[in-house]
């Protein structure tokens, strides 16, 4: 065999590298290396080597990434340096995909812990679609990209933030309290990269624009935004906006004796074409969970604990999540007992699972309410300083994520194949990732 003809030499910052055109083709068209190829992906190698005035150590790492698809960063190379070099060559996306694997709640490893400068307790953390996240503290939301580089923080007239959400990797919706009589607050759309306010959503009742406090948010795949709203003159309910035009398209007024405008959680159910609205203790004295069908403005299912006898150990629902696959709603109480309500029956009751861990004795000083999340058939529940993972039809506890530092977890979120957990005592959040798949 002769010497293969597709060899190519690089001189990077004085160090010589030799590789092949097939390896370089892995870089894709929109990269430094892609520009060396012609339209038919043929490489005409120059007689001598190609000189590149960049860091050779990083080049070695990136070349290895192109060769194997694996990212192995020696400890002496700072992440930032590597990211900068990857950006020069146009390989940032390659680095990101190699950094962590597809999400699996039972294989998570702590990837990073990020300490912030914001004062006060955290309100919410939301994972972005491509590995970034945003964290709400008081009236400011900090935005971090997948490299955990912080971008411009965002705020809506410096009003207290109630919820945030990602529409896509470049757009964040923020809901905030109103300021009396000023028309400030409400809901705004922001650019995640520059932090600019792009659009402010309005609520109008009978063709009059009203100021309002926006609460929990949810989005649905056909470009709608849902938010629980509290208006000045008892205009409580769920507002609906179009993501493309930004215009309000609908409003579901709350009926007397029920609660929608104060909701803790909204969840869009794709299969049922309904919105789950949950208002829970202690925001109200009672808990209300309902499914709204916006096509005929109908509350198609509802549950409340009004009138139900107080149990001995006072199990109150603290969070709820609909599980469409099993036609049920999972709820959790302050002792992290899971309960289930059947969605197919109207007026069913909570079936608490027996796996109660009586933790009454050792509750932390500043308890955080448990939260629930569902991701590809895995159920996640946060309690105190740990997150439990449940799997299977009977929701067996399979893993527990815990870090001692930072106190209780006040919120967590899964997205972009990462899990972000925000702690309440210190301003710190943890990033959990699934390692890349094993070699064999």
């Amino acid at each position: 065999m002769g010497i293969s003809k597709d060899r190519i030499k690089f001189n990077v910052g004085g160090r010589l590298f030799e590789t092949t055109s097939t390896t370089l083709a892995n870089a894709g068209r929109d990269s430094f290396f892609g520009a060396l190829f012609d339209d038919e992906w043929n490489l005409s190698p120059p007689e001598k080597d190609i000189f590149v005035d960049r860091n050779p150590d990083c080049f070695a790492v990136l070349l290895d990434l192109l060769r194997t698809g694996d990212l192995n960063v020696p400890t002496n190379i700072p992440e930032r340096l590597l990211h900068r070099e990857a950006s020069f060559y146009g390989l940032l996306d390659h680095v990101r995909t190699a950094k962590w694997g597809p999400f699996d709640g039972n294989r998570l490893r702590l990837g990073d812990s990020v300490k912030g400068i914001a004062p006060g307790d955290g309100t919410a953390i939301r994972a972005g679609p491509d590995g970034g996240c945003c964290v709400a503290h008081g009236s400011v939301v900090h935005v971090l990209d997948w490299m955990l580089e912080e971008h411009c923080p965002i705020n809506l007239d410096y009003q207290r933030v109630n919820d945030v959400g990602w529409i896509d990797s470049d757009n964040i919706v923020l809901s905030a309290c109103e300021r009396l009589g000023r028309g400030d607050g409400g809901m705004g759309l922001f650019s995640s990269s520059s932090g600019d306010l792009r659009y402010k959503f309005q609520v109008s009742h009978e063709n009059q624009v009203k100021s309002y406090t926006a609460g929990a948010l949810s989005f649905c795949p056909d470009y709608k935004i849902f938010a629980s709203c509290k208006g000045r003159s008892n205009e409580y309910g769920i507002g609906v906006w179009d993501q493309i035009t930004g215009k309000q398209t609908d409003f579901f007024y709350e009926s007397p004796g029920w609660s929608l405008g104060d909701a803790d959680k909204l969840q869009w159910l794709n299969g049922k074409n309904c919105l789950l609205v949950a208002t829970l203790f202690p925001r109200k004295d009672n808990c209300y969970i309902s499914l709204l069908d916006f096509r005929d403005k109908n509350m198609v299912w509802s549950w409340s604990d009004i009138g139900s006898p107080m149990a001995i150990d006072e199990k109150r629902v603290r969070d709820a999540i609909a599980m469409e696959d099993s036609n049920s709603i999972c709820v959790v109480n302050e002792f992290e007992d899971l309960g289930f309500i059947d969605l197919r029956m109207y007026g069913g009751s909570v079936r608490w699972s027996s796996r109660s861990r009586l933790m009454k004795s050792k509750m932390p000083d500043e308890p955080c309410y448990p939260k629930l999340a569902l991701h590809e058939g895995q159920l996640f529940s946060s309690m105190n300083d740990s997150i439990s993972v449940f799997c299977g039809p009977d929701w067996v506890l399979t893993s527990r994520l815990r870090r001692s530092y930072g106190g209780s977890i006040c919120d967590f979120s899964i997205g972009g194949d990462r899990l972000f957990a925000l702690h309440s005592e210190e301003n710190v959040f943890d990033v959990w990732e699934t390692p890349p798949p094993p070699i064999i």
Partner: protein
Amino acid sequence: MSNQKKRNFQIEAFKHRVVVDPKYADKTWQILERAIHQIYNQDASGLSFEELYRNAYNMVLHKFGEKLYTGFITTMTAHLREKAKLIEAAQGGSFLEELNKKWTEHNKALEMIRDILMYMDRTYIESTKKTHVHPMGLNLWRDNVVHFTKIHTRLLNTLLDLVQKERTGEVIDRGLMRNVTKMFMDLGESVYQDDFEKPFLEASSEFYKVESQEFIESCDCGDYLKKAEKRLTEEIDRVANYLDAKSEEKITSVVEREMIANHMQRLVHMENSGLVNMLLNDKYEDLGRMYNLFRRVTNGLVTVRDVMTSHLREMGKQLVTDPEKSKDPVEFVQRLLDERDKYDKIISTAFGNDKTFQNALNSSFEYFINLNARSPEFISLFIDDKLRKGLKGIGEEDVEVILDKVMMLFRYLQEKDVFEKYYKQHLAKRLLSGKTVSDDAERSLIVKLKTECGYQFTSKLEGMFTDMKTSEDTMRGFYGSHPELSEGPTLIVQVLTTGSWPTQPAVPCNLPAEVSVLCEKFRSYYLGTHTGRRLSWQTNMGTADIKAVFGKGQKHELNVSTFQMCVLMLFNNSDRLSYKEIEQATEIPSSDLKRCLQSLACVKGKNVLKKEPMSKDIGEEDSFVVNDKFTCKFYKVKIGTVVAQKETEPEKQETRQRVEEDRKPQIEAAIVRIMKSRKVLDHNNIIAEVTKQLQPRFLANPTEIKKRIESLIERDFLERDNTDRKLYRYLA
């Protein structure tokens, strides 16, 4: 140095900023600018990609992205302006080639520039939401070259000119055309549409307007369609070769509009070659072409269909109302079937089995078949003919095919009950005379009628078959219980249920003694096995086989009717009988007797009797002797009764009257059914509903319906509303 100057001593502020070459950005840009020039001058081989990429990267990194971006635009614009001038200078045919060449060069250069500026493309442009390098390069080409005033119209005219040349038969450089139109497409859909497609369509429209006018003056319809089709395929071909696929629909619609839609009426009605002519001469190819072309334009098929329908109706009307042609019912129906076959074939081969055309065909047939009140009778007669003899030697499947076709005609009939009446009569004759060819065919037809019209329609017909079957069994039983009867004449009785069979007045006659004895025996046997029944003899329907020996000893077996048998038996006892004597002895009604004697004495070759005097008609004074000289080469001789196959005028009237009579209770039943559910209904609606409900059987006459309503009112089924006399109420 003076002291005064020293007084102004200042401490220089500490500089935090690292001093960079203030001309850094300009210098770097100059390198890049020079490179862009070199690229455009096709002198890029000496350039270092790495160096240029790094420079562009550095400019963005040091916040000179804006400068880089605007610089790139200005430089490229300047270059493109120059190119535009060069292109413009090209003369004649080389103009397009030059444009194409420069366009290819620009594309190549743009690719390289994009590679160099990749980092800016990815970061600076992304975050500032400006137009990316590649689309920007295309926009610049569009604005500076394609829309350059001296190029814009010239380019368009050149292209249209080439298309025109190709249409008139010249060969053009299709590859070049494709490249140029591809350029328009690359520049964006709107550029292609505004700068090329729209004017192209307008020019085409003009061209075809003139051409179609020329053609229509000089060609006949078939040739015109051929030319139009050719033009259409040419345009489709053109689109496939060098235009955007999306243009196909637009250009074909232009051709369709100019060549077909605008001349539709004229084409269809063209004398000696239009649609009617094609239909008459079975020009499947032309018809198919017309269908395919007209299908493309709105109302095209409607026009074709309307003309076909009116032609069909006209033709059919002539066919069914021509008294000459309705003389022979079998031929009449055969002609209808042929006509249907013809149009079926046209629709299936030329019109792609279009449902709407089939519907038009059906409605036309329905229209004209019912123009002739005797159609039901004729169809029944046709079936009768086929089932009597026509089906001999034809396979089972062919029988089905013929029956299916006849059923098709049957479907068109409005007066299905009239058909039923006739069919019953004909079937009765067939069954009784044992002349039916195939039991299977008979039954299969009954099944078809049943699926078409329901159980009710055929229940009596099926009853007739059952009677035949039971009669067989009865006869077996009869002879089984009377073994002594194996000698002497054999009697075969068919016991018919009254009501299932067409009623005919029982014509009594005196049977010969030998036979009447047997009849009595059968009567007592039958009434003995079945209680509460009544038997009456329908001698006018029977047949008999008798053996006869003639003068010179010729032996023959004669197949005759019962009446004829009665007459012939008389000659066993006497040689000569007068008409009066025969009438007295047999008591056969005179019309029947005359017919019977006529067939015995006057039919050539079958004249077993001799009449004196010899003449064609039977007179009251005639007398008869046995024809001793009767010869026949067959042993068996069938002597038919002279009987008109077609109904005579009074018979027809009678059938008609019976049908009308039968309709009365059906109309009344329908009225009562409707009123029972509606309770109150006005006159017009009741007529409409009754007509609709009875449609599957016959077309009810409104005056008849009105009469029935009156009769129902008299009998207190209905009443008129007190205030509104047009309203009827149902009385429970």
